[in-house]
């Protein structure tokens, strides 16, 4: 019976192609709105999340705002690192220097840090090595260059073991970092030079650490690590919580997540309303079609169609219209997202969210049933003789 009803549904859909298409259009547009909008948000959110996660998600950034006359020293950070909930601690002190090699002379940002810093961010070396513990201990005048810095001062030639002059002092280049594609690189200058913290303190005369990052002993103990860090800073800065600032990067992720989820729900909700409007279109046309086909219904009932089979026939017809619209809508959405990816020029790749495709199909079925049942019931309930007499 289902197969027969399907056949009848296709017959009546193809018998009136333009009308069927116009009916489907409401569903098609609704599905496109739903699938494309939600896919756009989820693709964009994935790409933002990926960008944010390059900042490091399982780490804490601490900033000292008021050192109360006692600058924070490296040995104190070493002590913090012995806390069992804390993994690694690395300071990042920065200053601007004039860097010179050959005839190239340019401003560069000089960072003083520890080997742990590179490990925390999983930095890859393009050549040479990153800072070593012995560099720190011996306060060696060594420098690690960002790829851009290396290209700026050394061009195509290999800078390793060459000397670069920073504020007139010679530093031996020991390594070049891989290109930095993280969000950080967008926010700061790209001509960066890294040197042991101890060397920076000595050459710049800067006192104390104002910026450092902390990782938890394991990713799950983030909260404990944050607590330990806060306790340490409170003790250190005379219980003044305004003297420092701790930022948990994983909070950033969850904020991004919340914002994009809200966007999805909002846009998805709006699109769902347009699908609903499409459903009303189906109901409208089905009601017209039931009236037009009154005679057909009468004939079918007269030769023995039960109420149930008439109901099924019209219900399936509504379902087929809505599912065909849904299929076309999903196919067009796929095309639109591909086009959007092309337009975005590789910045973001938009993909069809599988979850939303399932939701769209579910919606289409629900709408077909919801808006098909009333016209189908009206058809099934017709009196055979009155229906037979109907002249359309």
């Amino acid at each position: 019976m289902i197969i027969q009803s399907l056949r009848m549904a296709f017959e009546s859909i193809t018998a009136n192609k333009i009308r069927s298409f116009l009916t489907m259009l409401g569903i098609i547009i609704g599905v496109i709105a739903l699938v494309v909008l939600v896919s756009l948000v989820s693709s964009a959110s994935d790409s933002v999340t990926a960008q944010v996660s390059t900042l490091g998600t399982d780490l804490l950034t601490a900033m000292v705002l008021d050192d109360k006359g006692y600058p924070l020293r490296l040995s104190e950070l070493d002590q913090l690192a012995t806390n069992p909930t804390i993994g690694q601690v690395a300071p990042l002190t920065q200053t601007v220097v004039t860097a010179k090699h050959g005839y190239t002379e340019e401003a560069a940002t000089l960072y003083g840090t520890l080997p742990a810093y590179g490990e925390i961010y999983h930095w890859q070396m393009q050549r040479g090595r990153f800072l070593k513990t012995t560099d720190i201990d011996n306060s060696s005048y060594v420098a690690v260059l960002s790829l851009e810095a290396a290209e700026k001062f050394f061009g195509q030639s290999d800078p390793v073991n060459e000397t670069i002059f920073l504020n007139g002092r010679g530093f031996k280049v020991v390594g070049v970092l891989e290109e930095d594609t993280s969000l950080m690189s967008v926010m700061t200058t790209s001509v960066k030079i890294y040197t042991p913290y101890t060397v920076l303190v000595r050459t710049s005369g800067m006192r104390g650490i104002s910026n450092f990052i902390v990782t938890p002993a394991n990713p799950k103990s983030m909260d404990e690590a944050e607590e330990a860090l806060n306790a340490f800073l409170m003790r250190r800065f005379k219980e003044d919580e305004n003297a420092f600032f701790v930022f948990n990067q994983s909070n950033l992720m969850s904020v991004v997540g919340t914002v994009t989820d809200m966007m999805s729900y909002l846009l998805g909700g709006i699109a769902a309303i347009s699908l609903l409007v499409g459903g009303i279109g189906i109901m409208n046309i089905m009601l017209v079609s039931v009236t037009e086909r009154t005679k057909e219904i009468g004939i079918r009932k007269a030769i023995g169609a039960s109420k149930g089979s008439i109901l099924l026939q019209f219900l399936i017809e509504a379902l087929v219209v809505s599912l065909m619209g849904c299929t076309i809508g999903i196919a067009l959405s796929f095309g639109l997202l591909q086009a959007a990816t092309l337009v975005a020029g590789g910045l973001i790749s938009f993909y069809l969210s599988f979850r939303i495709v399932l939701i769209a199909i579910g919606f289409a079925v629900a709408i077909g049933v919801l808006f098909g049942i009333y016209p189908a019931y009206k058809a099934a309930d017709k009196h055979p003789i009155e229906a037979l007499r109907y002249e359309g």
Partner: protein
Amino acid sequence: MNKAMIELHDVSKIYQVGGQEVRALDRACLSVREGEFVSIVGPSGSGKTTMMNIIGCLDVADSGDYILDGLSIDRYSDRELARIRNHKIGFVFQGFNLLSRLTAEANVELPLIYQRLGMSERRKLVAEALHRVDLYDRRKHKPQELSGGQQQRVAIARALVTKPSLLLADEPTGNLDSKTGAEIIELFHELHRSGNTILLITHNPDIAKTANRMVQIFDGKVYEEVVS
């Protein structure tokens, strides 16, 4: 004597048209036994089709009793009535009532679809019925591509295809030439001989006379039953 299949007791059907009462059937009584061939005659507008619709379970009387197979019609559920229309009754309508979107073949197939028969079974029965009315070579035509007589024969094939035990035919030969008409009537007699019950409305007295019994309707009343 076979038992009664159809019994109408004081059946009335009243239509209100523009404040005027039309008694399409007025306390009509009729009894048809299983295996009988009854012809119904009467002037136009006398209520023949109205009575046939009630007998065919398509319409209900405003008053009176219709007893089908020993059970009052209002004891049957909607579902059972659909089943009776589908399996037991073959109805040849006065106005053919073919589905214009479907081919002759598909029209004839329709009752079998509601019987949920398989494809091959349906094919076989449809071909058989179309051969019987001599329309097999026109099976792919749609109703508007057929002549009036051919449409009538499609309607007859559709009524016969389920091998119904009760055949209700409302002027089945109205659009046919006398030769084809005679062939169709001969087909009815053949069905009658094989045990089917037949009710035939006709304006042709010669055809009416070939039945076991002739019933006359006048102004909604069943007047006389002449046994041939």
